[in-house]
């Protein structure tokens, strides 16, 4: 089942349109909307143009085309090929209707919200995975093999984080160790002084006595 769909401009992550979800409860879906936002944040021009990211019982599928990201949340059992055909169809219709306005700078968020009607219609057509039309589409394309990269969402989200953490740890470790070295040197020096101070003092007194008694 296709649950929620969003269309976002790539360069500034401005949301252009989305489907209002009437299948999942507001509370359940907020976790996945948060994940969707995280994924969108990490996407750049150099990212993989088509990918599926698994997360719990659901999967996020996204497609980047002409500077626009089409992302949808589907159940894990929903065929991946069908999801991408769905996204392709949305892409074609969206560019057809609004392509010329996509680059303007003063576009407000959700400016093309009327497109939601088309999203709902297309979603209904794709919902039923048993219809023959959809089965044909399943068999015809080999998207799975050639174009789609599957990842796990934890890898995507935490990869950057752990590397950062490593660099932070190592630089802090280095700073701490240089501090310790300085402190250790200082302590050693102090200990040495303390050790030899009485001996040096006694020697000085002895020399002075000798001078006083014999060389005056």
């Amino acid at each position, binding site marked *: 089942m296709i649950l929620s769909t*969003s269309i976002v401009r790539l360069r500034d992550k*401005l*949301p252009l*349109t*989305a*489907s*209002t*979800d*009437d*299948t*999942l*409860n*507001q509370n359940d879906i907020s976790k996945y*909307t948060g994940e969707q936002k995280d994924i969108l944040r990490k996407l750049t021009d150099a990212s993989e143009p088509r990918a599926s990211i698994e997360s719990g019982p659901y999967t996020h599928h996204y497609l980047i085309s002409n500077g626009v990201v089409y992302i949808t949340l589907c159940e894990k059992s929903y065929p991946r090929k069908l999801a991408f055909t769905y996204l392709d169809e949305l892409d074609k219709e969206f560019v057809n209707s609004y392509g010329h306005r996509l680059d303007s*700078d*003063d576009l*407000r*968020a*959700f400016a093309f*919200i*009327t497109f*939601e*009607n088309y999203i*709902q*219609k297309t979603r*209904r057509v794709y919902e039923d995975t048993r219809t023959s039309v959809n089965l044909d589409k399943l068999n015809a394309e080999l998207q799975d093999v050639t174009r789609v990269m599957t990842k796990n969402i934890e890898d995507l989200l935490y990869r950057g984080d752990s590397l950062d953490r490593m660099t932070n740890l190592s630089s802090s470790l280095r700073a701490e160790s240089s501090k310790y070295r300085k402190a250790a040197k200082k302590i050693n020096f102090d200990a040495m002084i303390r050790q030899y101070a009485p001996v040096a003092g006694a020697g000085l007194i002895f020399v002075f006595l000798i001078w006083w008694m014999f060389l005056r």
Partner: protein
Amino acid sequence: MRSTLNAVPTTNSLLKKSKLPFAVIIQPYTTLREDEAPVPVVSDSVISRCRRCRTYINPFITFIEQGHRWRCNMCNLTNDVPTAFDWDARNQKQVDRWSRAELNHSVVEFVAPPEYMVRPPQPLIYTFLIDVSAPAVASGLVATTARTILESLDRIPNKDKRTRVAFICVNQSLHYFSIPPPPAPSEPAMLVVSDLDEPFLPIPHNLLVPLAECREGIELLLNKLPDMFANSASTGNAMGPALKAAHKLIGNIGGKIVCLMASLPNLGIGKLEPRDDKKSLSAGAEKSLLHTQNSFYKAFAVECSKSQVTVDMFLFSSQYQDVASLSNLPRYTSGQTYFYPGWNAGRSEDAIKFAHEFSEHLSMEISLEAVLRVRATNGIRMNTFYGNFFTRSSDLCAFPSFPRDQSYSVEVAIDETIAKPFISLQAAVLHTTCNGERRIRVMTLAIPTTQNLADVYASADQVAITAFYAQRAAEKALSSGLPEARDLVVGKLVELLTTYRKELMTSNVGASAPLQFCANLRLLPLLFLALIKHVALRKTAAIPSDLRSAALDLLGTLPVKYLLQYIHADLYCLHNMPEEAGKPDEKTGEIVLPPKLNLSAALIERYGLYLIDDGQTQFLWVGRDAVPQLIMDVWGLPSLEHVKTGKTTLPVLDTDLSQRINAVISKLREKTGSIVWPNLYVVREDGDPALKLWASTFLIEDRADQGASYREFLTNMRERAN
């Protein structure tokens, strides 16, 4: 936005000493549709807000450091000015920052950037729950509703083409209608669910359908609806389960549920018993009659508010319908209760009234998923909020849908001494328009401060004070009881008079001094007397609790303009109108109204023709000695005996008087901020005594059953103040 005090005392002790209430009446929308009163819009999404108190930039801030920073007028923090204020990045040129709307107008609307959205903008959704039990069909409710909705389909706001509708008919079981979208054949199908304990949706799709797409199917359904239930003989009404089912249908998105009922819900959850036993209209039981009978209505209201669902109630019944319980749903979900007692479609006036009001209600450009927050200068705090909404956390008011014909008031408290020369109050409403845009409407008000008690009294706004006390009295009546509400109003008036006399009058007045009050508050005793004599609060055992509940609802939500008219009706003398009254004015083209009179029977001549209008009902009073020529001019009948009393429509004749009277009546019925279309009743002085009694209750300056006349009231006040 209107404050009760136009010179604010600097300390709390001064405010307490003056005994004047400090409150703000907030009405973000004054008309039902946006284009009738447009507000400047800042469309470039550059919203500058104070870093500490989150106030929006407004005309009362000061720029410092040659305009590089601005000082907030609420918390005195300096903030940076965003670069877009001076430089238009798109056209690459300098702009004058003072031409920006938010620095020049105190009411502006900002277009909200994505940070203000929790989810994509909600589409407008209407779910109609129509009662099709025998009483409803017999009174013609079903047929009139279907026809009105059909005619108003074009008026429902649908600019973004996403508006969706659903229909559920209710009698002893729930009837759902599935309307398949084109290209499937758009023959709507009815699905009946009789399980009331766990109402479920029979099919997942096609119950909630887009209006633009499935227009044909919806029209087919509405045409067939009256015939489908024409022979229904069931008297069951399972509105409670229907409400739960509708909530399940739209709960994930939000929207409006409109309930139209002509009988008491008597099946399933939310069942109500008729409890208006005439014997129990005594003082003690009266209070409990105003409370809800069944806790379902309060609990369900909270659930609805959380899922952004609003419930409106349209109630038509000739018998007890427990308006008190049912009106809890609209009250906490920012809806409204509309009560039509004894409605019957057979009377054309009733049908026209409902059709007009329902059509206006559907075409109202409401806002969705809204929240309201009021901020003020440091040292000032919002204390209590009054109106139809749900208070989520201490100062955030949640409105699943924001109507345009209601007003709200906030009581303000002064916590610390104010050192500035003026204070500011800002109300911000974050909402989604019915066209799918997320916007913020910001209203800012600046009021000077003073340390002088005389200034505080001289600047008090009696209209705002009355409006505030009307809302407080309505709330008090529901929480403590009617006598307490009346005592609250009268007690406050006595306090004000006493304080004025003690503090502000020169000392050489004796115990038998005349009653003194400052000029700007001199109508306050009259307005307060009108308030306690109003149907909602009047001390009498003769008013049915349904009428009282409906009146209390109106007191608590009417905009100030209509509230004043509601408690103090307008009385026009029609037989002695000046020449230009009733005809269009030369300059504005508006019909000129005749002058208004004081509400006293002493001014009513025995041969005269008068019009009493309180915004909800109109009375045409004909004196018993009216000349036959007058009757002929207005009704075309030879003499007074032939004039029928009661709810009627005035005939439009060729005579000058008839034309002018009809012009005046239709002008009074045009309202830009309210959906109400008043009914006209003809009252003869020598006619039906019940009708005459009803009309004379509007003449508040006179003595009535258990109510003092204006003169007696003032004397009483004088004694209590001395």
